């Protein structure tokens, strides 16, 4: 057993209101610079929709993530020699139009225009070329357009549904959508790390945050195509690639990452998960449908004495173990089992989990009595979204995983309705609980964690122990002067 700690997150999609505050917080902190205007390390997509960049989920187009090649695992973009063959020209990248051309407006024209008969206007100009442009796309261009016949209809998850299911999804009276906030998943088997020809991308040993060394990066852009989530971005001004850093400088100071801190809906949970690194390869090679379950199987119980002993041997600090025991992500992912990874079939083992959206239920009234527990899973009509669609998103096509989560969520909802409204039969509440396999106390705990927690309970940042790491290498006083924001090092030339 090779235990490692990973700072990982859970996003509760039923709580997301799609306000984009997280995206703006991230933009203001990290990507408000020349060459980074188009980057949204955090973005919020409407589902069904094509997302940002357009159709990022379609790996036939972008060739991101891993695939099985015989008994081996291989990047979908090809093996090392194929990578070398296209090192000067990689056609599997999103074009600028697939992200969007960043724009601003000539605001000074409003005040500087000479007096005339017409009202002065601020024309849109490109932030890349500075020339006037027609705005035709944006990072959330399809916001709320759940029925659009361009963006929603071309969602790679929708396209694989049957004609009948698609019609049902887009029927006007049952139109449905939800928001999918996305940041870097800080994967266990990251495609970007494997794809980088310069060896510039690494996963931090102590907390599993995946970072791109700006000193080593040479802008080959292989990480852009290797990442199936399209969460590394090429900065055209610096000539280096960049990505979400999970606000590690904030975390090292004990603060929540910007997007977590600013989340209005309080959908974001953060905490340490322990996993067995020896099992990564075996798990990544499993069948699509087994991946979601197997990945959660890898996560270890921080209360288990055996795990605690092994963690100690692996050098994980006791303070980190304490944080792991308080981790809300452990509860969501493992204890309650209601959070699932996004697209596990890309085989990167993403460590950002989502509680799938239950959405308001369409319940049928029969002779004045609503039957919830009995009817909910007997017919697909009751679920707002086709289970197949959600299974394609969160479980590698395994509908049983989605059903198991939905049973639990519906049990929580029915029990709470009984408490607050009190219009249901006790028998029905018990039945829902029985189907879900949860106790009254667990349901209460899920309810509390979902809706009544403070930020300290939702976001449990482990002590990063940077002092120790720094002291091992250099004098802390010298470090304070030399490192941090604004430090610049000339790249080491090897020729």
């Amino acid at each position: 057993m090779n235990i490692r700690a990973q700072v990982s997150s859970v996003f509760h999609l039923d709580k997301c209101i799609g306000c984009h505050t997280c995206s703006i917080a991230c933009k203001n902190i990290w990507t408000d610079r020349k060459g980074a205007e188009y980057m949204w390390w955090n973005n919020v997509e409407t589902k069904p929709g094509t997302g940002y960049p357009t159709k990022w989920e379609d790996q036939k187009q972008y060739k991101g993530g891993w695939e099985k090649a015989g008994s081996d695992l291989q990047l979908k973009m090809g093996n090392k020699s194929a990578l070398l063959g296209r090192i000067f020209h990689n056609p599997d990248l999103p074009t600028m139009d697939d992200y969007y051309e960043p724009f601003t407006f000539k605001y000074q024209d409003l005040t500087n225009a000479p007096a005339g008969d017409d009202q002065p206007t601020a024309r849109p100009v490109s932030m890349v070329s500075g020339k006037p442009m027609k705005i035709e796309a944006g990072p959330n261009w399809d916001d709320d357009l759940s029925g659009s016949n361009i963006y929603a209809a071309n969602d790679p998850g929708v396209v694989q549904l049957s004609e009948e299911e698609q019609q049902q999804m887009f029927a006007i009276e049952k139109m449905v959508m939800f928001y999918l906030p996305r940041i870097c998943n800080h994967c266990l088997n990251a495609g970007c790390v494997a794809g980088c020809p310069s060896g510039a991308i690494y996963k931090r040993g102590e907390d599993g945050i995946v970072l791109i060394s700006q000193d080593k990066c040479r802008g080959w852009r292989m990480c852009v195509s290797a990442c199936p989530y399209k969460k590394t971005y090429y900065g055209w001004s610096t000539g280096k690639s960049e990505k979400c850093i999970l606000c590690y400088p904030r975390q090292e100071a004990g603060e929540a990452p910007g997007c977590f801190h600013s989340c209005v809906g309080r959908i974001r949970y953060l905490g340490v998960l322990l996993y067995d690194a020896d099992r990564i390869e075996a798990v990544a090679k499993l069948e699509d449908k087994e991946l979601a379950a197997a990945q959660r199987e890898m996560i270890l119980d921080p209360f288990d004495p055996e795990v605690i002993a092994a963690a100690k041997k692996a050098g994980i600090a006791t303070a980190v173990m304490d944080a792991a025991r308080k981790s809300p992500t452990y509860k969501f992912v493992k204890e309650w089992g209601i959070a699932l990874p996004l697209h596990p079939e890309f085989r990167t083992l993403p460590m950002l989990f989502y509680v799938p959206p239950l959405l308001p239920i369409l319940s049928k009234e029969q002779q004045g009595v609503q039957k919830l527990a009995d009817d909910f899973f007997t017919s697909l009509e009751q679920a707002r979204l086709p289970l197949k669609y959600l299974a394609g998103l969160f479980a590698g096509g395994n509908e049983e995983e989605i059903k198991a989560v939905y049973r639990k969520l519906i049990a929580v909802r029915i029990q709470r309705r009984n408490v607050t409204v009190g219009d249901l039969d006790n028998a029905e509440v018990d039945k829902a609980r029985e189907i879900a396999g949860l106790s009254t106390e667990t349901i209460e705990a899920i309810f509390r964690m979902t809706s009544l927690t403070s930020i300290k309970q939702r976001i449990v940042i482990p002590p990063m122990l940077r002092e120790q790491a720094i002291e091992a290498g250099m004098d802390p006083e010298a470090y304070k002067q030399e490192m941090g924001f604004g430090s610049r090092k000339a790249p080491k030339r090897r020729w």
Partner: protein
Amino acid sequence: MSVNRWCCLCSAVLALFLFLPISLAAATDDAGRGKELFVGSMAFELGGAPCLACHNLSGFGLSAGANYGPDLSTLYDNYGPDGVEGVLQSLAFPSMEAIYSTRPLNETERADLLAFLKQASQLSATPETGKLAQQVLIGLIVLLGLTFLIGKRRMRATRQPLIDRQRNLINKGGLQ
């Protein structure tokens, strides 16, 4: 990767077309030695430049032969044996004089060249423009093919085709 393989194959074929017409058989008779002197595979005794460096002679393909001086395919027919012999002796043209006044051809070399030129005039009296055109055409097609194959590797847009498809449907009246 298959595109790369195609590129390699095509350039190999192209090279084959260019160099195929040169025959490299060694010869022992007068005309054969003359040919070797003309082409430059055998050096002139005093080190004069081979004829093919500046002149063309039909039958040597595209890559061999030059057009700095006039085409010599019809030299023998136009001047006759005496005329050619005279020319080879003095080589008193302004651009040739600079080279050959200090490096004249000796008698056997002159005789060999004469024999070769005579033979060449008998074999094919006119330059083969048809064959040249054919080779140029094939070369052009191969080059265009390569350009097409390289063009196939360009990045493909994703978003714009979605919009275009929808616009086309609307224009055809398929959707409102």
